[in-house]
């Protein structure tokens, strides 16, 4: 049985170390990096990469990805809810723009493999980048460009 004194020392050391680490990671990306002029080390396996930045920067532009299945020459829009068929209580991850991840070129190959398995009825697929240049100045205007095909 740990004595009370040892327990108290252990708790005090842990609490102090935790508070230093917690505040370091809260400040590191946005405040300490600019002061240090370099990328300070991140504590892996815990804490978000850039601190607590919930909706901290929102502008009037938006971007997402759309996927079209092509049968012969006819492209058909595939509802993203069919692509990623997850259902959470109280929110919709597609509306949180999870689709934008497929635009990273690094993921193109694995996403194509995934699409071919999920939708064997199509001959090929076109992954499009969709940009809304300004929801305030040009509401509803969208610019679409092909990103990659599979």
């Amino acid at each position, binding site marked *: 049985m740990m004595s009370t004194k040892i*327990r*108290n020392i252990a*708790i*005090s050391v*842990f*609490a102090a170390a*935790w*508070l230093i680490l*917690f*505040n370091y990671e*809260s*400040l590191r990306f*946005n*405040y300490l990096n600019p002061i240090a002029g370099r990328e300070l080390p*991140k504590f*892996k*396996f*815990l*804490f*978000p*990469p850039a*601190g*607590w*930045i*919930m*909706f*901290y*920067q*929102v*502008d*009037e532009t*938006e971007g*997402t990805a759309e996927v079209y299945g092509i049968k012969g020459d006819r492209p058909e829009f595939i509802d993203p809810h069919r692509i*990623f*068929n*997850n259902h*959470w*209580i*109280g*929110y*919709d*991850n*597609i*509306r*949180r*723009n*999870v689709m934008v*991840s497929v635009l990273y070129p690094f*993921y193109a190959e*694995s996403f194509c*493999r*995934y699409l071919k*398995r*999920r939708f064997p009825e199509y001959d090929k697929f076109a992954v499009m980048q969709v940009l*809304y240049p300004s*929801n*305030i100045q040009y*509401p*509803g205007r*969208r610019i679409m460009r092909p990103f990659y095909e599979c």
Partner: protein
Amino acid sequence: MTHHKLFLEERPSIGLSFFRLFAAFTVGAHIIPTLLPLQDNYLSTAFKEKNPSFFTPLALGIVEASPDGLVIFMTVFFLVFLFFFAIGLFSQISCILMVLGCYYFYALNSLHIGTLSYDILLVTLFLMCITGYHGDFFSVDSLRRGDPLAYKKKRPFFVQRLLQIQIASTFFYTGLCKFTASGNWLTANPIYYLLNSVPESAVKHFPGRVFFAHQPQLCYFIGIFIILSELSMPFLLFYRRTRYWAIAYGFLFHIMLVATLHVPTIFFFLFPPQLLLFINPEDIVAWIDKKRGQNAAKGREKIIYDGHCHFCVGSIRRVQVLDLTAKLEPVNYQPIEDLSKIDARLTRDLCHSQMQLLTKNGKLYGGFYAFRRMTLILPLLFPLAPVMYFPGMQWIGSFIYNLIAKNRYLLHRKGTCKDNLCFRP
């Protein structure tokens, strides 16, 4: 010393135990939906995204090499320990193993579960894993220990204090980032932009959206109010006089968040219960004690049991653990000469054959029916009531109850009653 008290003072852990239930629910509500389409999300056929800023390349590499069999094993592993954590069975070890599962699925595919709120959840869970204090009450562990006063159990306050600091700081830093660093809440009008975003965006179609979408000035001032409230939350939460208003505001804030935005419900399921950790645990215990006193004064339902049967005594102690506000009064019938003084229908044979429950309005229930009735009296047993009252349960339940009751002297932990005849009248 005051600073010493901040973390080391021993205070009731009941608030932390209550928070465990919400932490378990939050984990389940966030991860289980991704486990249902396992093939699409985690098996070799899935489309996966990695989070290299969170994990080391080595950890990602090891997890990525998982064969499908291991993924299925980890699914079962995670679900088992999530369940154990939720019911508080081996609370600390099940917390650690459940969190291991959380990390595994996060490393395997961060596409669906990997969000800022998930990182916050992991920070919370990390603190929960440090001790097993969260298993002190509302848990199978507390039933195993059989201490009817477990709700008063005092523990060093540091885990609860660090969880308080975590949520207060998260509010503060969230507000700070909105107008410093590259946050644009002062230089632009983010709420106005959000409300005018495309119909498929993260903004829900809530009543009033169209009105607010045409009020840029109002949106801007709402934004300023949000920043100010987030910045002031630590002070409002830690200052005793404003604490309860700050908790109420925090609740409202998260209700508004979930009503207006498609954000992970971790915010909604975890943060309000975490705010409840600011409620003084001594106040909770005082409230429980007051209710116990009131119930004792009003007269309680009597649970009549065999005090010569160690199994029965143990069971009664577990019932007392579940009976937080002391609605039941345990009565050992063995030393009572004249049971008719309690109720005319009670006899030694009747009480010996099975446990009896005598309600305040004079109804007498025996055996399984007494237990079933308890599920309507004790709030902690409410979840069992639909099962107990399911058609047919009276036969199955009575059969099992009678089997146990007849052989209860065999169930002594020390096995001293091998012939099942000890203490028979």
